[in-house]
């Protein structure tokens, strides 16, 4: 019995690769866990069923930074995947790795796959194009931060649950009323402090974070965020609000404590990625409202438009020429309106083509899910400017660490908001120069 099954297994093992060898395997390393990981698997399965020449094999490689570092280590050993998911702050590093990557516009042209850059939503794709407007990587999952608020708490505090604060002055006023009425003990909290309270804050107020179009025009960019008066004013406010209980700091980097603080109704509002929508709906035992991020009304040009976060798919070089035909086909598949609309509606990530957005509208998705289009409207408030297209700095991951540290020092009260911004510029510029010289 055992012998027989062993023989059967051996026979299977011998036959199986022979059957699969007709198809070319495309390795895809990604960083999506949990529910998102399942949806990635499903995406690959749909593509594999749709044609018979290529098999896309997704494999989960840990967090964004773990997946990126694993792929870089694999590249140095000649074992890299064809497709790698890289988060937005890794863009500078990937772009600079000429010879290790194949830009998507080049890939599509070489393999005669129809590719119309104008079909994509400009604020999404703009983050990932070179100065000549060529698309470098495939914007697989993009999101933008929005404001989530607790409608039940708003109502208990005597506020209109259908009206979210539009400006920071209203955020303060509403929070004070919520705290005074005893409906909650804190006004608002934030995830991703650097992304939301700095990068998106500046984009929304049409102010530069660094020179050279926020790094898009060259790696010789320098940070200038310390010269932006509205930002300094905002950070001074954050420190004051923190001491008054209006604002609660939920940790640096990704702000890991913000979720529990909002779900337990301790804070009435939370600023978080639009892709956090599924998580919010699953965890919040109250009615949730969705709104755009607040702004300072006296700043000219505000609100401009918000910028994205999330990740893109990069093509790594070094495989057989024939494999890349499959990669191009896979990207083509990912761009189809049906696939895009499905991904957008199930994950909360932004649709990347106009057609997918329109398809979702036709399908009645936004009527059935009020608030799901807040992120798209906020992205499209105005055509992006040099200040609101995105960021492209080298070593930016380490710079984000510095931003978290200095914001914490400011909130503790050991330094002023201006000092914090000055320190970020000084320490950040050093890392930018390091990166620049490592390219020479």
């Amino acid at each position, binding site marked *: 019995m055992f012998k027989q099954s062993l023989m059967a297994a051996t026979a299977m093992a011998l036959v199986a690769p022979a059957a699969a060898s007709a198809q070319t395997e495309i390795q895809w390393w990604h960083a999506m866990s949990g529910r998102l990981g399942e949806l990635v698997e499903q995406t690959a399965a749909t593509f594999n069923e749709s044609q018979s020449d290529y098999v896309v094999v997704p494999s989960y490689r840990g967090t964004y930074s773990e997946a990126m570092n694993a792929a870089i280590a694999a590249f140095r050993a000649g074992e890299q995947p064809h497709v790698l998911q890289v988060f937005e702050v890794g863009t500078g590093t990937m772009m600079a790795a000429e010879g290790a990557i194949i830009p998507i516009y080049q890939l599509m042209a070489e393999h005669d796959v129809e590719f119309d850059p104008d079909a994509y939503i400009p604020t999404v794709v703009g983050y990932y194009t070179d100065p000549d407007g060529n698309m470098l990587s495939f914007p697989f999952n993009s999101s933008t931060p929005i404001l989530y608020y607790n409608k039940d708490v708003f109502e208990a505090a005597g506020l209109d649950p259908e009206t979210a604060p539009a400006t920071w002055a209203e955020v303060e006023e509403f929070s004070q009323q919520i705290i005074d009425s005893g409906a909650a003990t804190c006004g608002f909290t934030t995830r991703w402090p650097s992304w939301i309270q700095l990068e998106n804050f500046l984009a929304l107020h049409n102010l530069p974070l660094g020179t050279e179009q926020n790094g898009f025009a060259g790696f010789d960019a320098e940070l200038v965020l310390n010269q932006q008066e509205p930002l300094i004013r905002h950070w001074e406010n954050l420190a004051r609000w923190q001491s008054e209980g209006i604002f609660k700091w939920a940790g640096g980097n990704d702000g890991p404590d913000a979720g529990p603080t909002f779900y337990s109704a301790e804070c009435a509002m939370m600023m978080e990625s639009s892709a956090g929508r599924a998580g919010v709906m699953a965890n919040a035992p109250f009615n949730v409202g969705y709104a755009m991020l607040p702004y300072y009304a006296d700043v000219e040009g505000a609100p401009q438009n918000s910028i994205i976060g999330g990740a893109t798919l990069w093509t790594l070089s070094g495989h057989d020429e024939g494999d890349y035909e499959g990669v191009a086909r896979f990207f083509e598949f990912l761009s189809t309106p049906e696939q895009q609309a499905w991904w957008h509606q199930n994950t909360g990530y932004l649709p990347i083509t106009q057609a997918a957005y329109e398809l979702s509208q036709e399908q009645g998705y936004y009527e059935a899910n009020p608030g799901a289009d807040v992120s798209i409207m906020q992205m499209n408030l105005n055509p992006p400017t040099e200040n609101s297209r995105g960021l492209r700095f080298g070593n930016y991951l*380490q710079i984000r*660490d510095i931003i978290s540290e200095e914001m914490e020092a400011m909130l503790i009260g050991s330094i002023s908001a201006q000092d914090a911004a000055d320190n970020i510029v000084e320490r950040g510029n050093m890392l930018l120069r390091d990166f620049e010289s490592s390219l020479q």
Partner: protein
Amino acid sequence: MQTKRMTFSSRWLPYALLAPQVLITLVFFVWPASQALWQSMLREDPFGLRSTFVWFRNFERLFADPHYLAAMKTTAIFAVGTTFLAMGVSLLFAVMVNRMLRSREWYTTLLVWPYAVAPAIAGVLWWFMFNTSVGIVPYMLQGFGYDWNHRLDGTDAMILVVIAAAWKQISYNFLFFLAGLQSIPQSLIEAASIDGAGRMKRFWTIVFPLLSPTTFFLMVVNVVYAMFDTFGVIHATTEGGPARATNILVYKVFRDGFVGGNLGSSAAQSVILMAIVIVLTVIQFRWIERRVNY
């Protein structure tokens, strides 16, 4: 001291017997360590497409950085705190369990369990228990009028990581202390009690000195653990914050190298860390070991 001399029939046999150990040391220690030393003098992009030999510039940059020097101080506080807490608590447990007769094995089994908990899971448990919004510990402390906030209070954050790091090591220390206690001849303790020494007196003058080889060994192990093995705990609880209050050297190596992709600086930091541990171990063996009674 007596030395035993063994005679081997073949000249090559002793070398052959040593070879596996030498090979393992070469492959798993000498080779990676020399790689780190080489990389610490390079400036490289993450993909390794371009690299420049920069001599000691990575080191110069580190020592000119006040935050790096502050991280050394933070590491010292963390290592001393973790070692004392981990050893003190486990010694207390070992002494108490050693007095049990029938339940000793039960307690031993239960106290060793935490060692089997994966560090990542332990980290999540600590994060949850100390969470300022939903955690049980801040909730209880509130009852005593203490407002716990490790997200913005550096002292709170340090206490949290020391407790979390020490907890992991208690099981290990406990086992060694218990074994050490059981090897102390009962007759010595009986003789002391006949001479009228009380329980505390017996512990400090007889048991504790006789435990010194175990204590010394555990101290070396715990210091090395606190300096090298604790980045998982920090990553899951405070991520080095707030404002670098818990940013110990090994966590900085992890963040700059594995997260930031800055290999040159990260390698330079590992080399410094290696040097610190070598110096510490030499000090421990030369000065403290003299006070140990075997």
